[in-house]
Each structure stands twice: as structure tokens, then as C-alpha cells.
């Protein structure tokens, strides 16, 4: 293996490390929406893990408020209930 190939391989293998936080946020949010398509989901902004999820947005809102009180920053994501056509 040449050094050039080795370094390229290392960089590709550690792709998550070269992504920006915002790119990781979009990727994780899309994955959460696909995993829980009928739920409102609150992610923890720092580590992008699921803090709460429910079909009831108000339940997630209460969980998000509790997370805020603990100093966490919730990310609220929700997949459109159906294919949406915007005409605005």
C-alpha cells in the first residue's frame, strides 16, 4: 500500500470526523424521521441521541422542557405526515 493510498483510506474511513456538525445534524435528523415517521422526535443537540419521541407533540414538548431545564438543547424533528406539495 502506498502512503498516498493509506492516507486516503484513513480519511474516507473516518468520514464522520470530517463532516461539519450541521451536516451530521441533517443526517441524524433525516434518519430519526425515517425511523419514527409518525412521531415528533426530540434529539439532544450535543450528541444527537433521541431524548423523547411520541405521536403526541405535547408529550414531546413536556420532555423538551425538562431537557431544557437540565441544560440540554432539544432538536425538534417531525416527518411530514404525507407527501407534501407546497404551492406558496
Amino acid at each position: 500500500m502506498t502512503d498516498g493510498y493509506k492516507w486516503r483510506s484513513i480519511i474516507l474511513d473516518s468520514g464522520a470526523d470530517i463532516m461539519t456538525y450541521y451536516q451530521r445534524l441533517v443526517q441524524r435528523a433525516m434518519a430519526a424521521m425515517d425511523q419514527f415517521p409518525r412521531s415528533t422526535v426530540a434529539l439532544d443537540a450535543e450528541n444527537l441521541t433521541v431524548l423523547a419521541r411520541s405521536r403526541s407533540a405535547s408529550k414531546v414538548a413536556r420532555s423538551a422542557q425538562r431537557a431544557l431545564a437540565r441544560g440540554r438543547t432539544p432538536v425538534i424533528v417531525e416527518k411530514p405526515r404525507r407527501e407534501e406539495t407546497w404551492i406558496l
Partner: protein
Amino acid sequence: MSPRVLSYPAVGDSPVLFVNILNPRTGRPQIFQMLVDTGASRTCLPATRADFLGHDNLDGRVKTTEVSGVGGKSTAFIHTLRFELVDPDGKIWRKLIPPWRSEVMPVLFVEKMETQAGILGRDILSQWKYVGFRPTPNTPQSAWMVELEL
């Protein structure tokens, strides 16, 4: 000082951004999906999002107004919020510095708004020097790149 250009991969197939939204009373941010909508004169959120931000639509002191859209007229509750952009270039959450922050501003929480994302209207967009969209067809997860200049 040269203007700062920010590029955001959109969330899905619409020009949707993640934006920090703060209740000015607590100063604590939450991140929401917001559609960049040059057709909307005012920034708004679904009425159901008021709970998340510590506001109460049923409080008798809350002012209301009527808004019109393609779907007809609706009541909107007026609450005050502050918005921040998320740094699109930072690598680590703890080190992110918001590149732009709004003043505390009135925001409409619309009763008959069935979308999951809020809407960033021209009251916010007009505070930036430029905003545009560029299609990125090879990345279906983010079908647009939203570019703005501060």
C-alpha cells in the same frame, strides 16, 4: 469587514434549515426545522409549537391576529422569540458560535398550519444581504443548498 457567506445543506427536498429559537424570557435555545419562504411576509410556526417554547396560546393576555394563505384564513397567536442561525462550518457542538441573531421579535403561531416545519418569512430574510437556493440533485437527503450572505 468582508461579508460572510453561509451554505446550508437543506433538510430533505425543500429548502428547510435548522434554526435556534429562543424564548427571550429563558434565553434557552431549541432547534427547529424552518422553511425558507420568500413568499411569506411574516415568520410563523404551527400553533402546536407554542408549548415547546414555553408560551401559552390560551393565556388571555396573548394577542391574536388573522393571517391569510393559500389554504384560507386562520387565527394566529402572537408571541415573542429570538432566532439564531447555526454555524454551518463548525465541527463540534460546544464550540459553535451563532453567526447571526435576530432581535426579540413578534412571531405568529398559526392555528391552521399543518406543516411540521415553521416558516422563515421576509421579516427575517430581509435582514440578510442575500439568500438563494442551489439544487444538489446528487444528494437526495439534502436536495438543495441554501446560501445566504450576512
